């Protein structure tokens, strides 16, 4: 019952009208980024937006529908990745509910957490459905790593953990910039406006945000030696635990 209520809370008429707009924002920003040839995708800005102001379930639905519709109507390559998009929306919403979308540093942490989940999930989809080498540009990294003698799964994981943090942190920051541009009165119509209540940067978030950079540098090391990947992920896990602990302690 509690779960059902939590799901229901995410959806009011504003949510239902926002979701199509958010999906269109994903598509159009994704295409503008291609025109500008930027080294990121930024194609989940809308999904993250819904996750923050409507909640994790609405974010998950937006992500799943975005990739399904994108895949079926524009570019079939997007289709298999809907579980990844679903998780991006869900994790963003979950972090935002824990107050992790209120200042720049916290948003950076959210972006990193989303990236970890997205990297793992897309590795699974990739291995199961595509066989490791996809039609996207980042596959060049995978191919290079295969040449150095890595196994397919190692190469795919390394690629994902290198690429995803840059993309998802940029995406989260862009979504945050958009939310800051919206009026309090407008945001109040959505189910979870409190998630978007902007606050000043705080020291704890700054320190953790700085640690995120350190972890990312470690992950980049996995480009040269796979050991760095496991070390980076272990440190990430500790970081996630720390964030959870801090938020629990704050509530208590």
């Amino acid at each position: 019952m509690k779960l059902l209520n939590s799901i229901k809370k995410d959806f009011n008429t504003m949510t239902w009208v926002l979701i199509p707009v958010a999906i269109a924002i994903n598509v159009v920003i994704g295409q503008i980024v291609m025109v500008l040839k930027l080294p990121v995708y930024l194609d989940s800005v809308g999904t993250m937006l819904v996750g923050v102001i409507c909640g994790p379930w609405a974010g998950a639905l937006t992500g799943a529908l975005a990739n399904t519709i994108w895949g079926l109507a524009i570019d079939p390559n997007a289709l298999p990745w809907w579980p990844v998009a679903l998780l991006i929306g869900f994790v963003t919403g979950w972090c935002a509910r824990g107050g992790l979308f209120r200042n720049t540093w916290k948003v950076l942490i959210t972006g990193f957490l989303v990236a970890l989940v997205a990297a793992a999930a897309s590795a699974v989809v990739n291995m199961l459905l595509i066989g490791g080498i996809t039609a996207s540009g980042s596959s060049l990294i995978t191919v290079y790593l295969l040449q150095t003698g890595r196994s397919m799964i190692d190469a795919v994981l390394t690629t994902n953990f290198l690429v995803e943090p840059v993309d998802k942190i940029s995406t989260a920051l862009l979504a945050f910039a958009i939310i800051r541009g919206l009026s309090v009165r407008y945001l109040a119509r959505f189910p979870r406006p409190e998630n978007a209540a902007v606050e000043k940067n705080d020291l704890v978030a700054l320190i953790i945000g700085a640690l995120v950079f350190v972890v990312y540098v470690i992950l980049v090391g996995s480009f040269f030696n796979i050991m760095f990947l496991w070390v980076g992920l272990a440190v990430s896990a500790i970081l996630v635990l720390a964030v959870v602990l801090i938020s629990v302690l704050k509530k208590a």
Partner: protein
Amino acid sequence: MSIVELRNVTYQYPFSERPALEGIDLRIDEGEFVAVIGPNGAGKSSLCYTVSGFIPHFFKGELQGSVVVGGVETRQSTLAECVRRAGLAFQNPFNQISGAKYTVFEEIAFGLENLGVPREEMRARVERMLERAGIADLAGRSPYALSGGQQQRVALASILVMEPQVLVLDEPTSQMDPIGTREVFGMIKELAGRGLTVLMVEHKVEWVAAFADRVVALDGGHVIAQGRPEEVLTDPLLAERNFGLSRYTLAARAALQAGLWPAGRRLPVTLEEAVEGFKAAAA
């Protein structure tokens, strides 16, 4: 019998500094056509939202006083029930297209689907509505591929087909070109002729004078004048408060001050009245 009754209504939007409506008393009788005028920020749209139930159901915030439409307190029913009694159409025709449908016919049927009207009845009602709105030839077109005036008539038809007891119109022609304005007012005139109860916010006072049984002037969330159109629309108080009065009224007012308008004669609202008055002055 009054179909809309507002008693001492005060409302403030969440996160706003002052009330949008303050101590409003308003009754609308069955079959009456009431026009609302007022400068920007007077509370005209808020009044529309209040009568149609969006205040408080959609906008939240605190609503004081009582709003009774069709004999039921709006607070006591759901928004979906409120809009069945008082249908709302507003300025931007593009944003009133549901987006859920591919043709004008389907678009108009959307409200009936939501109300669970049986298929045969739904078809018959939509077809009748298309005829009455004069848009039968657009039935198979995409609502997005229409002109502003056509879109607004589709929006009006989409609400009217649900057969509300009151039609609430919030500046339905403010984003129309002259052709669109004439199309939309043509349709509203036809409705008024059939005795539908209408509450319409409108800037274009010449049109207001042509249709309305009564005019309500709002300013700063208060009703500052109400009565027959020719009385309210020529009220000197309104000219002082920057209401957008008709250019004929303003011309005659200037003429009056210059001693060129017959003393004691009421100021004109329409071109015909102005011509009459100036003829009398010249005679």
